[in-house]
């Protein structure tokens, strides 16, 4: 144990949180039947403004984000700050799209996005495509949460997989018993700890380094702002903007974020959260700057951190700067916050994938169980997701998880036309949407493959002008165009409008 006091505080926090996870099973349990999947997998749609704020905040801003964004600033500089416009753009989208989706989901008893699509088009194959996309995009995401957790456990000087396995066995246990209520309750503790850590970091570290002027002065000029585009190209400008917009369009389509939103108690809760959740974006922005503080503090050349950087690369920037600037016990608090910040989204991801598996695959294609059987199927699948992620992380190098997560973002955005457009219009055709989705998935995967699974940006050449663009955004535009152009043709041949089980009044 390299850092005894930090390790003790760390484990104490983890233990408290795990106890909370079990208490959550009894929390509000008088109001609903946990044997029902709407109760287990969606908290009975009962979370008010504040619980939703903690839950969605803890769910969308994950531990991986808290490690990866500062690491990107540390490694690539200004480009990493795209997290700011990204997390500004998500809220107009949240405000406009999701209150309507919540209403129709409530009216028809949907607990997943793909279920809505199935009800809207009467097309279980389209819903299957949406559901599989969601589950596949979530798997590497869960794995990355474990990478985040592993990084801080490693930073404490604790070798081996033991602590990680222990944490995840308990995670699986309370996910089983309490469902979505467990991460909802834990997220309150986690978020308070994260706020505490970041505020302390933003006060203490700049003071040590001589203020923000001194910190920015130590950032090399090419990293300080984006390089101006060369002639005949929109260069880093379109890359930066498309990265922000594409990421924002994708965020709330992920099963775990969708689950967080649908568990709110009403459309007004969602709208209020579009106003209140940006507090987390502010936090993320300040946290991103810790990447520059790590540069300015020169942690990379300090001998005590050499092993960490060799093992975890730029991801070690945040743990290193925290260990360097804080007393041991507070570093323990910070690491505890990051580790719990991994458990909350990991639990929600497992639950959300399980909801999709149950409602869009199992009951549709294999077996139509009773209410209790439905919940049991979901619980079993959630545990399998957690075990799968654990095996993944122990057997496969974490660089693959990063690459798969990159690909996951490209895939999940392809559900945008089917989910978001359908909230507003029924002019499209289910099969046209499925074809658009297919073209989007194939073209995005192909372009990422051309980039050797490392780059998210592709230089498109349009009339002699070069436009570097986030692949996800370019391919979802193609996807939407195909769906829009083919829909009128398909409707003439085989109109599927009569299969819509939702009514206009379900949306308002």
């Amino acid at each position: 144990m390299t850092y005894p006091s930090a390790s003790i505080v760390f484990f104490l926090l983890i233990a408290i949180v795990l106890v909370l996870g079990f208490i959550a099973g009894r929390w509000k349990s008088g109001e609903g039947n946990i044997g029902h999947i709407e109760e287990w997998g969606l908290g009975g749609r009962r979370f008010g403004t504040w619980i939703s704020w903690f839950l969605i905040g803890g769910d969308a801003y994950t531990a991986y984000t808290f490690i990866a964004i500062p690491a990107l600033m540390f490694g690539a500089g200004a480009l990493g700050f795209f997290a700011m416009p990204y997390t500004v753009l998500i809220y107009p989208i949240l405000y406009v799209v999701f209150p309507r989706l919540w209403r129709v989901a409530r009216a028809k008893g949907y607990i997943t996005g793909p279920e809505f699509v199935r009800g809207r088009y009467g097309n279980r194959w389209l819903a299957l495509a949406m559901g599989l996309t969601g589950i596949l995009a979530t798997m590497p995401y869960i794995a990355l949460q474990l990478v985040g957790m592993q990084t801080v456990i490693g930073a404490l000087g604790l070798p081996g997989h033991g602590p990680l396995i222990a944490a995840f066995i308990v995670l699986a246990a309370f996910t089983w018993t309490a469902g979505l209520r467990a991460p909802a309750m834990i997220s309150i503790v986690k978020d308070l700890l994260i706020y505490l850590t970041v505020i302390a970091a933003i006060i203490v570290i700049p003071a040590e380094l001589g203020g923000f002027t001194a910190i920015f002065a130590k950032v090399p000029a090419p990293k300080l702002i984006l390089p101006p585009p060369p002639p005949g190209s929109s260069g880093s400008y379109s890359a930066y903007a498309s990265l922000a917009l594409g990421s924002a369009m994708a965020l709330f389509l992920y099963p775990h974020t969708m689950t967080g939103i649908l568990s709110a108690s009403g459309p007004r809760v969602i709208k209020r959260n579009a106003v209140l959740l940006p507090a987390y974006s502010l936090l993320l922005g300040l946290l991103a700057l810790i990447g520059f503080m790590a540069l300015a503090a020169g942690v990379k050349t300090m001998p005590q951190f050499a092993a960490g950087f060799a093992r975890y690369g730029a991801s070690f920037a945040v743990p290193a700067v925290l260990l360097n600037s804080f007393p041991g016990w507070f570093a323990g608090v910070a690491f505890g916050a990051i580790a719990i910040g991994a458990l909350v989204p990991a639990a929600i991801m497992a639950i959300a994938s399980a909801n999709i598996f149950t409602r869009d695959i199992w009951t549709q294609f294999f077996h139509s169980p009773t209410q209790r059987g439905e919940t049991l199927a979901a619980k079993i699948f959630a545990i399998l997701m957690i075990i799968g992620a654990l095996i993944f992380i122990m057997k496969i190098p974490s660089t693959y998880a990063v690459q798969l997560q990159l690909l996951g973002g490209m895939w999940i955005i392809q559900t945008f036309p089917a989910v978001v457009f359908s909230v507003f219009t029924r002019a499209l055709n289910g099969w046209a949407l499925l074809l658009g989705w297919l073209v989007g998935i194939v073209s995005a995967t192909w372009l990422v493959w051309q980039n050797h699974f490392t780059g998210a940006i592709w230089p498109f050449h349009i009339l002699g002008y070069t436009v570097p663009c986030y692949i996800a955004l370019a391919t979802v535009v193609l996807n939407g165009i195909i769906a829009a152009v083919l829909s009128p043709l398909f409707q003439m041949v085989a109109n599927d409008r009569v299969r819509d089980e939702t009514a206009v009044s379900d949306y308002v």
Partner: protein
Amino acid sequence: MIRILLLLVMVLALIVPFFNRVEPSLFGFPFFYWYQIIIVPVGSLLIYFVYRAEERDAGEEARK
């Protein structure tokens, strides 16, 4: 119509050539950084205006 403010939020976040500069700096933060931090609360405020206006309209409609 008030929802045009939501569009404004998106424009503010996407005008990269406008905010990709060092000066004027504020409290040691280059413009690129403080601008993008400031648009977070500005965006939140604009969405709040939209929410308030729509809640008021909904309330008036209910009384009619």
